[in-house]
């Protein structure tokens, strides 16, 4: 068996396992944890299009989650429009906002860009908190919007049990991973990479760095907003502090950074590691030692950055390749 065949078949195996998991794992709590895990993996992979490929550090992505969540929820509650459609509308809206934000901010470097995205994220949150009615749309300010669990079914993206949610987010995750993979192999991917590392050199070669970054931003915000809708339909309650919070923006960015931004597996790995750490330390310690789970989270952040600043995907990829070497030794003279 060739190396490539082994890699593909292991990927297929992982696919079978993840798709088959709900059949074996019946506990709704574990499904819930996995659903949130996939959601975060999805969010960080979408973030990665800008934060990893374009080489900047956006810390306001929660705003797009919020746009997606609020758009589909308002359209559903007030006009009865299916969340699937609302999702697309939310995505388009988020993409537009993303471009508006990107236009002036991409001219800035590093730290300024990060601060600007923070300001945008918080600014949008403050506005949503203060506004009850935007024209005919009811935002309900800080009280948030609740979606009553009636009319369950596929058209309304609402289900009584967890399995359908599991599959939807899994499909979304696979799709976004595939998209990321194809972009990384495309011209856009190379332009972004060049533009991130050495913008002046890239521009001198005729690459329109600014335009590429905006395209990446638009895609990233669109995809992120889709997750917002999913989240709204999953928890059935949204309010500014839960969907447009700075904490969420930070968490998305940090998971990607710890996993290894710029790579495809990085964000997923980061989510796989950090989400369970956060969840389980809250479950086991939250009651007795309040705040301990955050201390653990912070410590993990610090340690990983000190020892593996490029993210954990680097050492893990090396281990993976070593494993492959062991299984399929490369014969001398070939490959």
């Amino acid at each position, binding site marked *: 068996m060739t190396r490539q065949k082994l890699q593909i078949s292991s990927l297929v195996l992982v696919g079978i396992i993840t798709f088959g998991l709900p059949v074996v794992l019946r506990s709704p709590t574990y499904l819930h944890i996995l659903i949130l895990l996939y959601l975060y993996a999805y969010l960080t992979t979408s973030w990665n299009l800008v934060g990893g490929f374009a080489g900047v550090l956006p810390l306001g992505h929660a705003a797009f989650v919020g746009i997606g969540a609020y758009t589909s929820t308002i359209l559903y509650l007030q006009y009865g429009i299916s969340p699937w459609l609302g999702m697309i509308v939310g995505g388009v809206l988020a993409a537009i906002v993303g471009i508006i934000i990107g236009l002036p901010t991409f001219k800035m470097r590093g730290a300024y860009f990060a601060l*600007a995205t923070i*300001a945008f994220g918080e600014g949008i949150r403050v506005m949503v908190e203060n506004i009850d009615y935007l024209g005919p749309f009811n935002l309900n300010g800080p009280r948030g919007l609740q979606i009553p669990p009636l009319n369950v079914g596929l058209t309304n993206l609402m289900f009584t049990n967890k399995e359908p949610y599991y599959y939807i987010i899994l499909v979304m995750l696979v799709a976004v991973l595939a998209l990321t993979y194809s972009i990384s192999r495309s011209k856009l991917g190379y332009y972004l990479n060049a533009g991130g590392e050495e913008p002046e050199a890239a521009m001198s070669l005729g690459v329109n760095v600014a335009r590429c970054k905006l395209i990446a931003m638009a895609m990233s915000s669109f995809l992120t907003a889709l997750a917002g809708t999913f989240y709204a339909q999953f928890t059935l309650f949204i309010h500014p502090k839960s969907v447009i919070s700075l904490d969420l923006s930070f968490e998305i960015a940090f998971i990607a950074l710890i996993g290894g931004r710029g790579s495809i597996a990085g964000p997923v790995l980061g989510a796989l590691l950090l989400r369970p750490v956060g969840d389980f330390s809250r479950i086991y310690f939250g009651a007795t030692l309040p705040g301990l789970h*955050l201390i653990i989270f912070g410590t993990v952040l610090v340690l990983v*950055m000190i020892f593996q600043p490029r993210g954990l995907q680097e050492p893990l990829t090396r281990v993976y390749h070593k494993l492959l070497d062991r299984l399929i030794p490369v014969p001398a003279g070939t490959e």
Partner: protein
Amino acid sequence: MIYIVEDLINGILMGSIYGLTALGLTIIFGVLKVINFAHGSLLMVGMYVAYWAVSLSGLHPYLTLLLVVPVMYLFGYYLQDIVIKPIFKAERDVREPITVIIVTTGVWYILDNLTLLIFGPQYRSIQDNPLRGKMLEIGEMMISVPKLWGFFAAIITAGSVYWFLQKTRTGRAIRATSLDRDAASLMGIKQYRVYNIAFGIGTATAGIAGVTLVPFYNVFPTVGVLFDIKGFIIVVLGGLGSIGGAILGGIIIGVIESVGPQFMTATWTEAIVYGLFLLVLFAKPSGLFGVKYEW
């Protein structure tokens, strides 16, 4: 008319204190080129140190500066040395180490929650201190005395730091490193020692800011978060790395917060502050007094 003047004065006083809290941030950014997300937590630590110093000794709050300043300086110095320096070394060739931002965020989470764990979530404030609740009455206007003290503390601290950077050898070394760290180290300046000192100074100013706040503010584990975001806004407004800019930026924010509510609800002034922030970022990213950085 008199109302506007009264509000203006309150805004300037409170704003100078905001500027003081942001001073450390701008020093650290100017020299190390990193955004220190743990700055709010350092402020909180400074407040707790000041609080315990006053509660246990019964001294006038400003006298505790004798304890707070050295303690905070050393805390910052070693924080940089132990936690942040390794990352600098690892990312030697990157122009701006983004990973440091993450580390400082980790430090923020750790500090805030460790404090919660150890000291509990209660809101503390010092009951009997000579500054509490004192007001100066000039005609119909009332001016808060502890804020007045804070104003002077801010000006004196800013002035001292500025003098230090301009006139002393270490200060010049710091400035050289902030302009071009490679050239500076070629000239024999120990780059990492400079970083440590700068971080120590930044943290010490956070400690001073904590002392000014303790007489009239509550002390609790997450108090730093409130000043954190404001600090960034102030620093960008004033110009990253500019000391006068930090104080002035703080005053601008303070005035908006004080005068604004007379014309709208307090909740909208928050939005205005963010709007102003974005405006400055786009129009003049280097801020009002910042030097245009080529990075």
